[in-house]
């Protein structure tokens, strides 16, 4: 009698030994949302916090240490020699100016190239053509960065494609150097600039354009007074990419830049050849600082919501 009554509830729950542990866990988790959240968050936060945030903090700390010039070992010796060297040395001034100049040039070139094609995609092309163009712009975004830089190495090379194209009209390739780097970087970041501008243009209502032309404005005037002011946030969003990516680049400059020195190549030289991590860390704070200033300035325009 007693055996029957005690086994009855178990039969309702089906095979108690197999299901009970999983079932109990499930019930516990179902009732405790905070435990669920903790389980979900712990591993990713542990990883990102430990690997990434700790590394960034460590980078900042290392900038205040020094390297023993004989052994190459890093000495924990708090000082601001690296910082004052980076801020005071004429070499770093020149390289910083050159890098910022390259970033500005690349950004301007990309915006100039992006505006017409983005406008055509958003406002002129039929839906089918628009879809095809978006794919055509997106595809090279995923082709290897390195391969694209390498492509420009072959384009710019002596007797390369550019020499061959410009030869008949008396021109020649700029070769490996500052101009070559700017061209290559502009090529690399172009899709990043086109896409946000395209998105911004798509949001401009067609009725505004029609109204403007109904009132007698020509294409150029409509663009200057109606379209342009509306897409400024999109343009700035694109410029963040080209500007920040150029500041941090060093591979493309190594491939097509010849002897051109940029902030990125200086950082790399200090890590690899000179084995002076503290100085490299101090140099890397320059692009980081410039980007934060740039982001701070453009934040007011609301462009960050367009990324």
């Amino acid at each position, binding site marked *: 009698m007693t055996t029957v009554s005690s086994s009855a509830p178990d039969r309702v729950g089906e095979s108690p030994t197999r299901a009970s542990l999983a079932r109990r866990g499930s019930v516990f988790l179902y009732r405790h949302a905070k435990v669920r959240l903790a389980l979900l968050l712990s591993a990713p936060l542990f990883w*990102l916090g430990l690997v990434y945030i700790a590394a960034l903090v460590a980078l900042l700390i290392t900038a205040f240490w020094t390297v023993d010039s004989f052994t190459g070992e890093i000495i924990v010796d708090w000082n601001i020699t690296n910082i004052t060297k980076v801020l005071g040395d004429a070499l770093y001034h020149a390289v910083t100016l050159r890098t910022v100049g390259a970033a500005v040039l690349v950004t301007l070139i990309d915006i100039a190239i992006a505006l017409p094609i983005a406008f055509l995609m958003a406002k002129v092309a039929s839906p089918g053509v628009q879809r095809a163009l978006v794919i055509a712009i997106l595809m090279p975004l995923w082709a290897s960065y390195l391969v694209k830089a390498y492509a420009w190495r072959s384009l710019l090379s002596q007797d390369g494609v550019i020499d061959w194209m410009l030869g008949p009209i008396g021109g020649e390739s700029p070769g490996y150097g500052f101009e070559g780097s700017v061209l290559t970087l502009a090529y690399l970041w172009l899709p990043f600039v086109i896409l946000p501008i395209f998105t911004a243009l798509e949001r401009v209502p067609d009725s505004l354009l029609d109204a403007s032309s109904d009132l007698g404005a020509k*294409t150029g005037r409509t663009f200057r007074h109606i379209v342009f002011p509306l897409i400024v946030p999109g343009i700035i969003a694109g410029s963040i990419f080209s500007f920040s990516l150029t500041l941090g680049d060093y591979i493309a400059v190594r491939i097509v830049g010849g002897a051109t020195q940029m902030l990125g190549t200086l950082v790399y030289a200090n*890590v690899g050849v000179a084995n002076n991590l503290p100085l490299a860390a101090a140099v890397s704070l320059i692009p980081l600082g410039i980007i934060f200033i740039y982001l701070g300035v453009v934040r007011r325009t609301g462009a960050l919501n367009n990324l």
Partner: protein
Amino acid sequence: MRLSLPSKFLLWGATAATLAFIYVPILVVVLNSFSTSKTLSWPPPGFTTEWWGKAFTNAGALSAISTSLVVAAVSTVIALLLGTALSFALHRFDFFGKSTVNLLVVLPIALPGIVTGIALNNAFRTMLDIQLGWFTIIVAHATFCVVTVFNNVFARLRRVGTSLEEASSDLGAGIWTTFRLVTFPQIRSALFAGGLLSFALSFDEIIVTTFTAGSGVQTLPIFILDNMFRPNQAPIVAVVAVVMILIAIVPIYIAQRLTTTDNR
């Protein structure tokens, strides 16, 4: 929009020129891999498949390809686990510091590669005293791959909502059963797309890799970079570059097809 004929002409002309600007360099690499010239001279003096044969028997290139495949696969698995957990946490819960966590995911890819690279290099070498190699490359790659998985899965969770899961638990299914039979099938293709993108991203990455690889391990991008400056290796590099384009573009194409068919 109504356009005057000259401005229409100008716009289409600029678009054609831009597309040429985008595609000609890639085309030139493909053609150079069949050129008999060793110095990238143009037009190619002759046609040969010699470099393709040599590249596929080049021990360095082959081992670099397998290294890259392993690194990309392991980092993708880690990124899938971390990215999925994060997207569930950020989609299903409201908690203190949520926006900070959101920023934290994007940071490794938003900051310039050189900053990420040197920060990790410094952390491994000076702070933790870990020898650079397989482990450090995979840790670095997984860190910036998390965001691609996160973006895909989060977008999917936002779209499918939670009503089906609620129905499932109302009908008596536990958390595991609901995940296995309801949630997972809904996010499966997003996981696949995110995983493919993360794989392609890791396979291509060069900047952070140069700082975390050390001298012992050579991924395919590092192989290309090392050989690019050697005089007689240029055509082999062109072949490997074409292989990289193919390996990167095919998964992206599949991923994009997957996400667009889902959205219909």
